[in-house]
């Protein structure tokens, strides 16, 4: 990585536009960006594309981009609110179960002749209620979100089976299912990925540009100090869990349309892939740091790896999990090293600064 720049705030002031680089030349900004975790992920994506092309000439084709990205839509959607939740140092493990409950509810409502639009809306409401339940237990109940959402992981999945049992529904209106695996106009961009793209922008603005986002970082980095600053810690967490529920329910609707099948057993284990993407994207599992941009890149990386390995005939698909696991460990190790390096550099710089500027003497210091 570059030697000459790296603002000390590069990994802590996570503005995607590099607020710390303001006022310096484009070269310096570029070098600063190169020191960031996101840049590493980008390199890995390129490496994966090269390797993927070597494995199979189909890898960089339209079809493979479409199927590869489609398969990742739901995980990608759920990773967005999860990013915010993990930055506040909480977690939501129930996302895939909310997705399943939403899918099951959709099936049940459709079987009982509820029209499509109210069906979808009711699914989203159900997702909001699931999130509210999680959020209330965490904020009002004062329980650790890890324990709460392990519980609701089982609870919501169980409810999905209660709603429709082993049945599945496949006769959704074709206009809706066509949308599920259709493209935007004549482009190669799937509709569902367009939905994700819009939400990703919204979440990025929310996290990096809004009052709400400032509070999220403060809570994650030091909840007590945030509370002492008048930030409504509990309310913000509650809202995040509700958002997570709604987006997971939306993912449930989308996966049902995309597969033309709604059932209680969809999305098993998706929560772990989503968390893997968030952590791989440079979000600290202890809260306080991370960017939406990093997570989006990590999602691309994971999707690319999956696609590359699944196209190969000689490599067993079991390797997908091995590679994902190895990347995860690397992603926990990597930012740690990067931030340690940045810190050492910043400290050296501060020290030099302190020597250069002796403390001013007292007299003329009236404020």
């Amino acid at each position, binding site marked *: 990585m570059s030697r000459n720049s790296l603002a000390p705030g590069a990994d802590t002031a996570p503005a995607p536009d590099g607020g710390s680089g303001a006022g310096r030349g484009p070269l310096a900004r570029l070098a600063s960006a190169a020191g960031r975790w996101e840049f590493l992920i980008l390199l890995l994506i390129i490496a994966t594309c090269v390797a993927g092309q070597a494995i199979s000439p189909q890898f960089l084709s339209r079809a493979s981009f479409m199927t590869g990205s489609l398969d990742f839509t739901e995980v990608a959607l759920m990773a967005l609110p999860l990013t915010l939740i993990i930055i506040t140092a909480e977690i939501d493990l129930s996302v895939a179960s909310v997705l399943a409950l939403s899918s099951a509810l959709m099936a049940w409502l459709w079987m009982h002749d509820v029209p499509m639009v109210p069906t979808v809306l009711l699914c989203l409401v159900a997702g909001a209620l699931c999130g509210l339940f999680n959020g209330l237990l965490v904020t009002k109940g004062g329980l650790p979100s890890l324990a709460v959402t392990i519980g609701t992981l089982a609870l919501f999945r169980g409810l999905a089976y209660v709603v429709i049992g082993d049945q599945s529904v496949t006769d959704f209106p074709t206009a809706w299912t066509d949308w599920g695996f259709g493209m935007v106009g004549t482009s190669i961009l799937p509709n569902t990925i367009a939905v994700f793209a819009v939400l990703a922008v919204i979440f990025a*603005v929310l996290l990096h540009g809004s009052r709400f986002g400032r509070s999220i970082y403060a809570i994650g980095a030091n909840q007590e*100090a945030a509370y002492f600053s008048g930030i409504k810690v509990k309310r913000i967490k509650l809202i995040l869990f509700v958002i997570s529920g709604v987006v997971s329910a939306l993912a449930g609707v989308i996966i049902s349309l995309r597969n033309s099948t709604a059932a209680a057993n969809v999305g098993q284990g998706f929560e772990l892939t989503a968390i893997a993407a968030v952590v791989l994207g440079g979000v600290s599992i202890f809260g306080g740091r991370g960017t939406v941009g990093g997570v989006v890149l990590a999602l691309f990386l994971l999707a690319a790896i999956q696609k590359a390995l699944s196209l190969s005939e000689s490599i067993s698909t079991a390797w997908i999990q091995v590679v994902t696991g190895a990347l995860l460990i690397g992603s926990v190790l990597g930012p740690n090293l990067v931030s340690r390096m940045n810190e050492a550099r910043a400290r050296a710089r501060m020290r030099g600064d302190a020597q250069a500027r002796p403390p001013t003497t*007292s007299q003329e210091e009236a404020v």
Partner: protein
Amino acid sequence: MTEDATLTVPILELDHAAKSYGAVRALREGTLALCAGEVRALVGENGAGKSTLVKLLAGVERLDAGVMRVDGEDVDFHSPAAARAAGIAVIYQEPTLFPDLSVAENIAMGRHPLRAGRRIDRGVMRRDAQALLDQLGVRLNASRPVRGLSIADQQIVEIAKALSFEARVLIMDEPTAALSGPEVERLFTVVRALQQRGAAVLFISHRLEEVFSICDTATVMRDGAVVHDARIADMTPDDMVRRMVGRDLGALFPKEDTTVGEPVLVAHRLTRENVFTDISFTLHSGEIVALAGLVGAGRSEVARAVFGIDRLDAGHVEVEGRRLPNGRPAAAMAAGIGLVPEDRRQQGLVMDLSITRNVTLTVLRRLSRLGLMRRGSERRVAAEWAERLQLRHHTLDGPVRFLSGGNQQKVVLAKWLARTPKVLMVDEPTRGIDVGTKAEVHRLLSRLAAEGLAVLMVSSELPEVLGMADRVLVMHEGRLTAELSRDEADEETVMRAATGQTHEAAA
């Protein structure tokens, strides 16, 4: 300094010891000797350096300079275990025992008597423990679990534990702070028994009557140095208080004369069970009111409750005639209150965030439009306050973690002043910051009051209290024991009220 009984070599001796934490010289001059059978008092104001001295003796910290001797031989404790091996035991105010283990197991911890096959010999363990407790003359069953024992009983267990590894020096750090009258008496009986056995005891207490009833000699500390060493018989309580606080005030505290304005904040009979009781006071615009008292008197807790961090069990706060809802910091802020908390690193700042982000944390609403932050305004506000408070920094985008303590405190002040509050509560505003910045903070507070701010300053430093305050409220064990005007307040009136000798302080 009197030097009698020099015939015997002291068990433990500290000679010209010094210890600094960064730029703060916590202990400048520590000289102290403990002889067998001696009970010595260590007294001084908060921050005089007593705790630092104890940490050195206990092996928790190492000396920067000076010498420590045990039985006349130089020693250097690398760890608490080394101090313990040399026969030094510390009994802390809050005992650190394993609640689910029995008294005997706690006493034997780490040195359990063993039988064949390295199995613990419970019989021997229990008998030994019971014998120790009986020697101390206390009725405690060695087989019962520690959970449920009173603090006083737990201290006895700690003492028994110390004796079980043949400690010859017992350092008791405010052991009586949480004890009732009869419990104190029983502890004193135990201390006398220890004395009979030839142990040396270093007794730290803020309660002078205890010092005078149990100790033979006293070491008085002030500003990180031992300033007096004498036999108790040769001193009076007044004399001791004077030596604890006596120093030049004045120049360091540039208090501007202000005209006291309208009442801004009224506290009505605030009560939080077991923390503070029936606290009433009024803050006027333009005045600095100090809340003085010893550590643990409940001062910070009052400030936290006024701000809504902790809930009140009774009473309420009014700001400009409007009653604040209980337990809502956001509401207190909206009413114009700010709180610079005691624990800067945990409560005052988000250490990993930048200076800008910290300063603007309290004014997010003002700096946003439709929920979106205006980056230019954010930077401008941070830069403006950094300039006004003479913040010494490299970049406003660097984490506050890298700043010195004094500059960190300026960031905390900036984030509250950015709200232009009507009432600012500052809890130990200059703790752990260097002298230069300290004076800057004092000047700033004084100036703000002159501009009409009402300031409530919680402080454990008497010079700060006396130098800065227009009015001094003194707390002792959760109650207000005195309200003193600037003229009435001096070292002695404040210290008397702070140690609970109210009859003389009620001027």
